[in-house]
């Protein structure tokens, strides 16, 4: 979706402000939100792309004015409500008043903690041959899906070069909507700064994205 989360190339957000000796969490609740998101995902309530999509669908003014973990909390609450794991009555009372829904992988317990400290595997068997190879010139399609996608707006319609082939991966655009993994070839595609930002761009800049095959067309 063309949301405010897709902010590559936007102006006006100001300087980057590194914080010396930054703590891991600024408030204790942030750590609880992190843990709840990781645990409910591992228990099977949602996949990583669904959790991203619920953050992206927060109203733009909320997205831009909320801290990272606040967005995580708001996205988690909306997702769990939407998928029926919690109810509005639960939220209003601050306790469970509605029946629980069964989770694909059951209760998240101590025995599961070790498992989630390893990244998930997103590589899948190839359903067919790769359409592109390193060195091929490709155009990022001018497409504007209204649902979750990982093709940022700033590359759409622009021509780049395939640099690496990462094999086939779970396709975020479908898995985020519970429409299946539909594995797709994944490539690193490099764009010249001037191709993206015009002739006044710094000529020494190159920008790459990792693009799923359906995002690309041959040039």
């Amino acid at each position: 979706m063309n949301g405010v989360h897709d902010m590559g190339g936007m102006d006006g957000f100001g300087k980057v402000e590194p914080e010396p000796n930054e703590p891991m969490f600024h408030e204790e609740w942030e750590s609880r939100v992190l843990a709840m998101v990781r645990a409910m995902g591992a228990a099977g309530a949602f996949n990583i792309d669904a959790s991203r999509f619920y953050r992206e669908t927060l109203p733009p003014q909320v997205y831009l004015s909320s801290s990272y973990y606040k967005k995580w909390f708001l996205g988690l609450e909306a997702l769990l409500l939407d998928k029926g794991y919690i109810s509005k009555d639960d939220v209003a009372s601050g306790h469970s008043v509605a029946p629980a829904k069964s989770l694909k992988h059951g209760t998240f317990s101590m025995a599961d903690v070790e498992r989630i400290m390893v990244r998930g595997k997103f590589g899948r068997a190839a359903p067919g041959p790769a359409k592109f190879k390193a060195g091929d010139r490709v155009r990022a399609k001018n497409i504007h899906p209204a649902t979750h996608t990982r093709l940022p707006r700033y590359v759409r319609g622009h021509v780049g070069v395939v640099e690496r082939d990462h094999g086939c991966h779970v396709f975020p655009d479908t898995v985020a909507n519970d429409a299946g993994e539909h594995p797709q070839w994944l490539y690193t595609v490099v764009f010249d700064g001037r191709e993206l930002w015009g002739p006044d761009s710094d000529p020494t800049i190159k920008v790459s994205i990792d693009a799923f095959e359906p995002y690309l067309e041959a040039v």
Partner: protein
Amino acid sequence: MSEHDHHHHDHHHSELSETELRVRALESILTEKGYVEAAALDAIVQAYETKIGPHNGARVVAKAWSDPAFKQALLEDASKAVGTLGHVSRVGDHLVAIENTPGRHNMVVCTLCSCYPWEMLGLPPVWYKASPYRSRAVKDPRGVLADFGVSLPKETEIRVWDSTAETRFLVLPMRPAGTEGWSEDQLAELVTRDSMIGTGFPKTPGAPS
């Protein structure tokens, strides 16, 4: 949700923000429904606080600086190469290491959310997740580097890697001069988190830290 909705809670509302109240309420709901064990949530937080962090990435970089065969393996398949180091960190399948050279500087961003190599670098800092970095890194990387007090020769190519899929990128910075004969442990002390994101350089030998 207003404060009086929580009158049945026994903690001191006046000291808690609305967000904190809502987070506590959600945790109560999830544990009461049997979705999560509260102790398991504690254990997740503890694991993030103790097991991951930039010390993992620093060990990998120091090893690559010391061992040419490891460096080559790292650049060919970083997940596999890091896997051979045993307990450094469990990175999964999709880690890619990218090498800085005198002619090319690499910098990593996630414009769409905040993808970051957690297992190598720990949880990302606020600036990495905030709008200024995410919006500007792909259009004005030199301006972003200037915000970090970093400048590069004007002819150096700057390659920005936007982490738009589940691949995760670790920058292999250049080994500082004056470190000939140093042990891996000594070298690891010079490797900063930001040097592995591409927004900084390793520390210089002898410079105050």
